[in-house]
């Protein structure tokens, strides 16, 4: 809980609402997906969103994709205006705790986790911050170094 702990240390008294997408998964998006308005309302009500996102098979877990499908909603978090799409959620802070098994350049053809989250949150007006643990599955030394790097990035998060 390093990221949450860091944020609460910087700003005591913040309320934390938890949504575990594995324990309580959302279904794949369907035409009736708008019935999950509570997921969107929860997002809209939050000031800061901390997303735990491992990379599985080059992208985010499908559980997380299902959540993003509920928060990228036309007329709520973005709209199409005269100049194209416009994000409507720009006042929020998003911090992504990203872990990846290997090492990926940002422009790698295999990297669809960080790049996807940057694009998806950017589309609704948010520039996400990342704390990253890389090389987790490479070996014990790389795993330890990756976690240490991620935790150091957490400590450097701005208040």
């Amino acid at each position: 809980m390093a990221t949450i702990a860091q944020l609460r240390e910087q700003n005591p008294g913040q309320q934390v609402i938890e949504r575990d997408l594995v324990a309580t998964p959302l279904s794949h998006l369907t035409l009736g997906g708008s019935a999950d308005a509570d997921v969107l309302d929860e997002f809209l009500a939050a000031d800061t969103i901390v997303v735990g996102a491992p990379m599985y098979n080059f992208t985010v877990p499908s559980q997380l994709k299902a959540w993003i499908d509920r928060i990228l909603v036309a007329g709520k978090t973005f709209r199409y205006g005269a100049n194209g799409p416009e994000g409507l959620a720009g006042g929020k802070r998003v911090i992504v705790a990203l872990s990846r098994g290997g090492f990926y350049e940002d422009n790698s053809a295999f990297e669809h986790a960080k790049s996807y989250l940057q694009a998806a949150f950017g589309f609704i007006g948010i520039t996400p911050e990342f704390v990253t643990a890389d090389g987790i599955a490479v070996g014990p030394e790389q795993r330890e170094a990756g976690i240490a790097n991620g935790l150091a990035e957490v400590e450097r998060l701005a208040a």
Partner: protein
Amino acid sequence: MTILKIDSSITGEASVSASLPWRPSRSFASRTLASK
């Protein structure tokens, strides 16, 4: 002020702590890419 914490790790380890390790049984991708 409200923080919304979203977890999406199937391992149950604390992904939000940035310490989530995913240990695939076949780590072809990560090992291959890491060795480049």
